[in-house]
């Protein structure tokens, strides 16, 4: 069953069709939210809220965009409304490297790398909301400038400008980090 059929079934009262929509899209919605807040608890709450809003709004979903794009838009809006620019990541940062590498590298180097990753997360968390949203959608979700513009309700020009300023700000902030 494709997304359009699931939407139609949900709107016609098939409650279980919405369960399938959730199952199909929960991971990517969670990932968007996690990128905004950098911790599991908040990402989980925000994702749940996004799906509840999707449920409320589904009867108004016109199918002009893909369901996934529409869900992205809801998730991003939930995050933008809830997340404050000063939210710091609260979860310990895990190493992204496979275990074997830690045997080769000195513990000190690993630690430095983790500290740097934490600094990058903090810098992203400190970006203005639109810049952060643009960076997240472009970098981690491979969206085109046009798709991001649709989701954020802005122009392609504004998306490119926000993307540039996001990177330039990160460069500035991280340049000051040890």
């Amino acid at each position, binding site marked *: 069953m494709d997304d359009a059929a699931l939407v139609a079934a949900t709107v016609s009262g098939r409650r279980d069709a919405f369960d399938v929509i*959730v199952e199909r899209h929960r991971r990517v919605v969670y*990932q968007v939210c996690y990128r905004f807040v950098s911790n599991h608890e908040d990402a989980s709450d925000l994702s749940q809220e996004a799906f509840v809003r999707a449920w409320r709004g589904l009867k108004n979903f016109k199918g002009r965009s893909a369901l996934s794009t529409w869900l992205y838009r809801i998730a991003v809006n939930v995050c933008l409304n809830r997340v404050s620019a000063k939210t710091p990541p609260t979860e310990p940062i895990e190493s992204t490297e496979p275990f074997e590498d830690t045997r080769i590298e000195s513990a000190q180097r690993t630690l430095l790398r983790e500290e740097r990753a934490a600094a990058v997360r903090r810098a992203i968390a400190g970006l203005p909301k639109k810049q952060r949203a643009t960076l997240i959608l472009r970098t981690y979700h491979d969206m085109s400038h046009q798709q991001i513009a649709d989701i954020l309700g802005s122009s392609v020009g504004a998306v490119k400008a926000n993307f540039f300023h996001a990177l330039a700000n990160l460069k500035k902030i991280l340049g000051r980090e040890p």
Partner: protein
Amino acid sequence: MNHLTSDELIDAMEGMLDATRQQHLDACEACRRELAELSSVLREARALNVPEPSPLYWQHFSERVRTAVDAEALPSGGWPRWLRWPALVPLAAMALVVIALMVSAPTPVDPPAAVAAVDANPGDVALAADSWVMVADLVGDMDWDTASAAGLVVEPGDAEWAVLELSANEQQELTRLLRAELLRAKS
């Protein structure tokens, strides 16, 4: 020639820079450095991972969403989605007040439309616009906080005010439902 603009730097990062500007980039140390620094920041950002939750978590997540959505679902009985019962209860109460006032009014020359509507053939769906406005006015004046405290309204909010801005069809449907409710209360 001018250095790359911010747009062009983004294009360059994404391999979309046009040929003439690419020539500038190839020849310009400053632009190449700027591009390298931005690309390096992007690489660092891209390397950040999202920890993958367990399969058990996803199952739990779906259940949480289901519970939250079930809490939102309408009670059965065929009421349209736009007409949530928290809005309907005070409206029905107001309609009763309107009718009580009209019935007790001294020697009405013409029976007011709302009274006529209650006694009318159930197939007749029209309620006079004046009566509608009166119901809307009364509801508009209602103290929702008090109503909420009294348990009349579960979640006072936009839904209540939205009722005052219904389309003609929705007004008709509300009228029909209110009348059915009133007839049931009378019997």
